[in-house]
């Protein structure tokens, strides 16, 4: 039993080695972060989502074959203050009771040269789905792959902030999103 297990592991390692390139799949959520910055009356206010899950399959040798999905627990938002946190989960903003999660599903990845790439895909928030293009960089940090990127999301495309909050002179339409994802190679998971 034990021997078989070891043999299988060895075979898996060999296979992984045979694939030559490493595919970065195991996302380390403790090292990854999802942050955003809104502008309120011209004041940049930083925020973040504490809980999200993401699947990544990225092989730097074949970036165009890469894929990713991201699911954000919207109630885990930190919008900068307690007042803001209470407000943004409400009906006019994310309406988390009806739409607890936001989702991004990639449809493709483009290599832009160097370590620069671009993820294309569909973002769904509050029942609205829009095409998103998110440029990112990839670098290897030891055994891990590190993805850094961001894009500008227009909150009104997703009805984030309805009623009086639709006033983009108070809270700007453009929300800057920044992500930092650390993923271990797929083989490392098969211990």
């Amino acid at each position, binding site marked *: 039993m034990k021997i078989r297990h070891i043999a299988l592991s060895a075979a898996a390692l060999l296979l992984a080695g045979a694939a030559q390139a490493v595919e970065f799949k195991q996302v380390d959520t403790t090292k990854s972060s999802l942050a955003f910055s809104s502008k309120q*009356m011209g004041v940049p206010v930083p925020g973040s989502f504490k809980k999200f899950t993401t699947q990544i399959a990225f092989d730097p040798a074949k970036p165009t074959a890469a894929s990713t999905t991201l699911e954000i627990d919207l109630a885990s938002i930190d919008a900068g203050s307690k*007042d803001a946190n209470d407000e943004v989960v409400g009906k006019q903003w994310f309406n988390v009771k009806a739409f607890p999660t936001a989702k991004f599903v990639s449809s493709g990845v483009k290599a832009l040269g160097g370590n620069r790439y671009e993820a294309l895909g569909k973002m769904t928030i509050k029942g609205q789905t829009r095409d998103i293009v998110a440029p990112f960089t990839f670098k290897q940090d030891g055994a891990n792959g590190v993805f850094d990127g961001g894009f500008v999301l227009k909150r009104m495309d997703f009805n984030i902030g309805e009623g009086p909050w639709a006033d983009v002179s108070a809270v700007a339409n453009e929300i800057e999103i920044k992500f930092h994802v650390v993923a271990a190679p797929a083989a490392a998971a098969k211990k």
Partner: protein
Amino acid sequence: MSSYTQRYSGPAIAAHWLIALLILAAFPLGLYMSDLPLSPNKLKLYSYHKWIGMTVLLLFVPRLLWRLTHTPPKALPMPAWQHKIAEGTHHLLYLLMFLVPLSGWLMSSAKGFQVVYFGVLPIPDLIGKSEELGELLKEVHEALNWGLFGLVGLHVAGALKHHIIDRDSTLRRMLPFGK
């Protein structure tokens, strides 16, 4: 007698009334806005309040420099104790003119909302974000404001007493467009 009718200088009069007007706008605005539920309107009022406060702080610097380099008109005859109270009130008013907006600026930074003057010019944060410090500075800002409120009341009462009861030129020589 003529030295007693001497008016304050133009810049002193302008700075006095301009800052008085700004304080009279910022104070009730601050009282009103802090209890509002979060709304775009609240965000706007907070910004206006902060812009007014920063303007006071900005005007305070040249005003103080002017005051330090120019001798104001001689005080009118009055009992020594009244003169002392008037002087003390003036000194404290100057101090609070500086400390009130400064405490608001620091409180803003501690609360994690940078002051961006007129929505375009970011004013540097002197301290980092900290919830406890933000709460403490809120208390300090409020206490200083009530102090300012009391002093302004005393200052106005004094000026009116001179104008109405003593019928001297104390108030008139600070009035704009006067003779």
